[in-house]
């Protein structure tokens, strides 16, 4: 294809991506170095019947004017990154000195908003990704071995948890595990503890969020693996059988190696999606027990005072996290292309 026709064909897409993905990244990085203007404070002498007093008050007009003139705020360098709400170097150092062993250090780290969010995000990603793959694999194997009649309905109902809006799907689960909902009551009955409430317990909340994550993502892994199973070479399977391989050995040595590239693919997509975990925390109203990096940004942006710079700094840190997560994949894709 000629350079010029390539250019015209990709122009609309590239303009869109430049304006709404590449440019915002630049704008986020810039914003993270600026902090909002402080309010302009003036001292006025206030004279009443009991004499004169000096009073300080906020000059609303001047504050609005300076904010209007420089909407990005004033240059703050790296100070937003190092403040208590982000990397909190000062607090971390103090906690390290004070800490009584590593677990204690970890506990005081989890009291800092950024580390709390990072801790949950990483745990969520590390737990949900492998469990999704395992569950999806077993569903695919099971569907592949049952009667044809069950296949259609299984695929239909399995797709639902994945297709349904994450916010809506997690709300549905949240209502069911409410202390007055069916699963919540079931849990109370199982543990024989009538006061048990998922909402009140940090541990249970973490587990619930991860259960939701697996429920939501397993269908994707299932569909991909199921499609892969259709292309397993039956000749290889039969010769393995003739050679005396058991059912498990056939799965282990024929099916699994065949599916391995698919596992990498699913793992990559899942890592990207799990790292941005966000909606379930809103639905579960879990922010007291668990926050994620995305939720921290959302929290800064919402509400009356939009903390743009704080959100921008967290965004930059999130993007750095994504880059670290993706770098092995990118390097591999690049090498593959180079070889061709």
């Amino acid at each position, binding site marked *: 294809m000629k350079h010029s026709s390539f250019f015209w064909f990709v122009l609309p897409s590239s303009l869109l991506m430049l304006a709404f993905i590449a440019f915002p990244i630049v704008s*986020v990085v810039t914003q993270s170095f600026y902090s909002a203007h402080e309010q302009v404070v003036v001292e006025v002498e206030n004279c009443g019947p009991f004499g004169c007093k000096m009073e300080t008050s906020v000059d609303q007009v001047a504050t609005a004017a300076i904010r209007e003139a420089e909407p990005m705020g004033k240059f703050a360098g790296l100070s937003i990154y190092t403040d208590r709400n982000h990397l909190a170097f000062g607090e971390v150092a103090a906690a390290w000195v004070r800490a009584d062993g590593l677990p204690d250090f970890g506990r005081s780290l989890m009291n800092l908003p950024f580390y709390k969010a990072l801790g949950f995000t990483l745990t969520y990603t590390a737990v949900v990704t492998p469990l999704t793959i395992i569950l999806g694999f077993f*569903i695919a194997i099971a569907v592949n071995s049952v009667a044809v009649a*069950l296949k259609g309905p299984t695929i239909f109902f399995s797709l639902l948890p994945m297709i349904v809006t994450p*916010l809506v799907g997690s709300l549905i689960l949240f209502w069911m595990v409410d202390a007055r*909902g069916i699963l919540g009551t079931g849990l109370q009955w199982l543990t024989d503890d009538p006061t048990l409430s998922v909402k009140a317990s940090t541990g249970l909340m973490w587990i619930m969020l991860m259960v939701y994550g697996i429920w939501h993502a397993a269908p994707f892994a299932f569909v991909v693996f199921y499609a892969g199973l259709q292309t397993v070479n039956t000749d290889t399977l039969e010769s393995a*059988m003739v050679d005396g391989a058991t059912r498990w050995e056939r799965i282990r040595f024929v099916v699994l190696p065949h599916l391995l590239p698919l596992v990498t693919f699913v793992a990559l997509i899942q890592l990207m999606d799990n790292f*941005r975990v966000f909606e379930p925390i809103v639905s579960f109203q879990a922010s007291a027990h668990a926050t994620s990096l995305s939720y921290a940004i959302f929290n800064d*942006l919402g509400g009356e005072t939009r903390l743009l710079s704080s959100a921008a700094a967290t965004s930059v840190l999130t993007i750095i996290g994504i880059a670290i997560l993706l770098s092995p994949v990118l390097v591999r894709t690049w090498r593959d292309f180079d070889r061709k």
Partner: protein
Amino acid sequence: MSKANRQPPSVRIMATSFLVIWLVIAAFPFLWTLWGSFKVEGDFFSKANWANALFGTMTQIETGGSFTGAGYHGAWIQEEFWRAALNTTLVCLFVVTVSLTCGTLGGYALARSTHRYAFWFLLFALIFRAMPPITLVSGYLLPFFEWNLWGHLYTTVIVLVALNQPFTLWMLHSFFKNIPQDLDESAMVDGCTRFQAFRHVIIPVMWPGVITTGLFSFLLAYNDFAVTTMLLSKENQTMVPKIASFLGTTQTKGNVMFAVSAVVSATAPLFVMVMFFQRQIVSGLTAGAVKG
């Protein structure tokens, strides 16, 4: 069926029961919420007995019947959920059309170009695909406020189209790779320009891939929460942020049933979609994967 796939009964029973359990886990929450949305709050969240939600004991006492549409009435009419539904329809319609138009052009070029920059283009698209939308939203807010773009439906449509492009490009790129290159090249030998070849030869045969990609664009627009909640003003809200706003206001008023019926209403179109387009969704999910 080949011999290697034949199963002893014990394995069959195990596989079947595992599947049945999974099906219950996958489907039961939806059926339960659908059933419960026609009850009153006292039944849906029952302190006394969980079976009340099944038989509607409190619903019987409060309304006289076992089913009530009060939640739907409250959500759709009193809280004006119809307006959110209308907004969602508009947003989805435009997002799908615009992103498919840009995506087919770009995807076609990426599939046919053999130059190195096409690869870099796709690689950057992959990196962009990994960006969480909410990190980009914090970059939009200030310019959008400054230029008075915040709160409008069309701003959201353009943003969603842009966020959708990396995925659309990857998907359509792999679909176009499967259309034989001889097709458009012979048209060009006959004197067509590149665009004419695309217009007269490729467009007629590209629809299966475009429909599949369109379904996923629709899902992205329909399911988005991060962008729509931050970029739309209150009167322009789509369904998902509207449901989220129910949680803030209705829980105190005791109208949690509004949220439940809104949730069921928002799930229904997806249900229908999966029913009709199951084959396309499955093929789309596996398109990128199976071919490598």
